[in-house]
């Protein structure tokens, strides 16, 4: 058993905490989404939907809490999707040479980068949930300590799988492409549909059929649904939409994300084995 991936992980984390500006912005950004977009939208949505009669017997969740799950998903999406960029610069400035010339298996480079990305995603998720609770998000409402712990672990597990998937995707692109502009435009192109064709910020019930269908396969939807299941419960209503998550639903989230991550892992391994120095 070899553990060289720990060296890659160590280097990534060292640099994550070294670049104070990147560190600060990546931690402050989700808080700003929640604080500005979240609070503003939440008030207007809740005002608009206050006329919709409550569904009897179903707990009502405000928009802020609904959106909080989406913000976690979105934030992890962006940080993971751009997380592979370091590889492109490492390759561009021949920093990767040292590692590629060493006995470290290439899969360990992917794993090391992946785990460091997951760590960053965990930190962000933690901050969003913490700050969200502070401004009145209803996560884990009425849960016992054990239930909260289980729910929290469930969220982190989903976040980890999701994050790995997008880091592998990002790494594959980074190792293939030569210039930063190209990388930037591909990632922007990818993130747009991922973000909007999902239920991260709004329910998809009113979507046109095609978009609704597509959004069901979107990893972002799978993650947002999963987080909502763990944090808001399996039966709630938001803005007049009744949400019921069954065990099947949460299994679909897990399996879908695992499938996605594995597919991206094989893509990454394939691209990495092609790299020549």
């Amino acid at each position, binding site marked *: 058993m070899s553990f060289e991936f720990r060296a890659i992980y160590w280097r990534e984390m060292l640099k994550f905490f070294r670049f104070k500006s990147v560190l600060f912005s990546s931690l402050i950004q989700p808080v700003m989404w929640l604080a500005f977009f979240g609070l503003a939208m939440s008030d207007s949505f809740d005002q608009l939907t206050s006329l919709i009669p409550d569904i009897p017997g179903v707990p009502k969740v405000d928009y802020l809490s609904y959106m909080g799950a989406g913000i976690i998903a979105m934030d992890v999406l962006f940080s993971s999707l751009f997380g592979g960029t370091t590889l492109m610069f490492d390759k561009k400035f021949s920093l990767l040479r040292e590692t590629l*010339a*060493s*006995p470290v298996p290439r899969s360990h480079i992917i794993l090391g980068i992946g785990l460091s990305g997951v760590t960053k995603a965990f930190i962000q998720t933690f901050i969003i949930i913490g700050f969200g609770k502070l401004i009145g998000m209803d996560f884990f409402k009425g849960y016992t300590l054990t239930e909260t712990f289980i729910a929290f672990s469930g969220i982190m597990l989903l976040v980890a799988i999701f994050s790995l998937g997008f880091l592998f995707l990002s790494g594959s692109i980074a190792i293939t492409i030569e210039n930063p502009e190209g990388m930037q435009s591909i990632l922007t192109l990818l993130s747009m549909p991922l973000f909007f064709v999902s239920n991260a910020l709004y329910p998809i019930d009113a979507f046109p059929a095609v978009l609704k269908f597509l959004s069901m396969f979107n990893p972002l939807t799978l993650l947002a649904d999963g987080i909502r299941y763990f944090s808001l419960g399996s039966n709630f209503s938001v803005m007049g939409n009744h949400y019921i998550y069954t065990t099947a639903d949460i299994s679909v989230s897990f399996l879908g994300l695992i499938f996605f991550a594995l597919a991206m892992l094989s893509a990454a391994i394939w691209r990495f084995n092609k790299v020549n120095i």
Partner: protein
Amino acid sequence: MTGNVIEVNNLEYAYGSVKAVDDISFTVKQGEIFSFLGPNGAGKSTVINVLTTLRKIQKGEARVNGYDVAKESKSVRRSIGIVFQMLCLDHEMTVSENLEYHGKIYSMPKKERKERIEELLKLTELEGKRDTLGKELSGGMKRRLELARGLMTKPAVLFLDEPTVGFDIQTRMRMWEYLREIKREGTTIFLTTHYMEEADQLSDRISIIDHGKIIVTGSAEELKNKLGKDLIYLETSNNKIAAEILRSLNSVKTVTEDTKSLRVMIGENVTHALPQIMEKIREEGIDITTVNIKKPSMDDVFVHYTGHGLREGDTKEKYDGMETEGVSE
């Protein structure tokens, strides 16, 4: 072990249809500094890339530290240290972090890493810079750090690809001192260079390589002596005829015609040969305008064996872009 740290037999390497390395065989002995001297594009970097398993061997056989580069690449990698032609340090990590990272990717135990970092910082005189970021180092210090990094795992062989390219002469000479010190500690060194003085002053043995082939191998002394004891430069009113006369003389080993002058290798003591040479040429009514005597240098050796100077070779762009890289500063 046969005492050879590197053994190469009939190595060939082609980029598409362009042969970069053409049927090369050589050995590097335990504990020596061995140089590949040749112009850019001669195939030097390709040989290093094959020996360090960065490129898959296409034809022939090569063993490094007893391991087959084709089949035992992981063991080869564990046996070697590399200083790449292009600087590749992490500018956002400190000197000691760069070394630490290297130790970690080679799975060195923590205690060993710490000790080795101290030794190497001392060797490369970077002790005062241990917490300095890579980007704040001067060019020479960066190279020294790379040298330290290459030695981190106590490799059996240290490969250096054009280690002093782009550096001023002081920095270069200092680098040579470090390399000699490393050799004294028992590390075998394989380096490529296109600097004559580097090959001449530093190496125990040199292979002159041109167009992917090894032209000649030997110590600097041997190579120079093969040319003859002394070298005379002559400028005459008719170089062509003078050259013919000279070739007929017993004391003359070879005659090379340059654009303006004749380069005459003498097999015996020049003080006796020169009067005779001058007399013979004058007898044919040719005027001698300039005479210059010197001991053969590496430049002369190179010109003699390759038929051209290194400068001229610099402009050959046969394999350019595949293996020629400048230092980024």
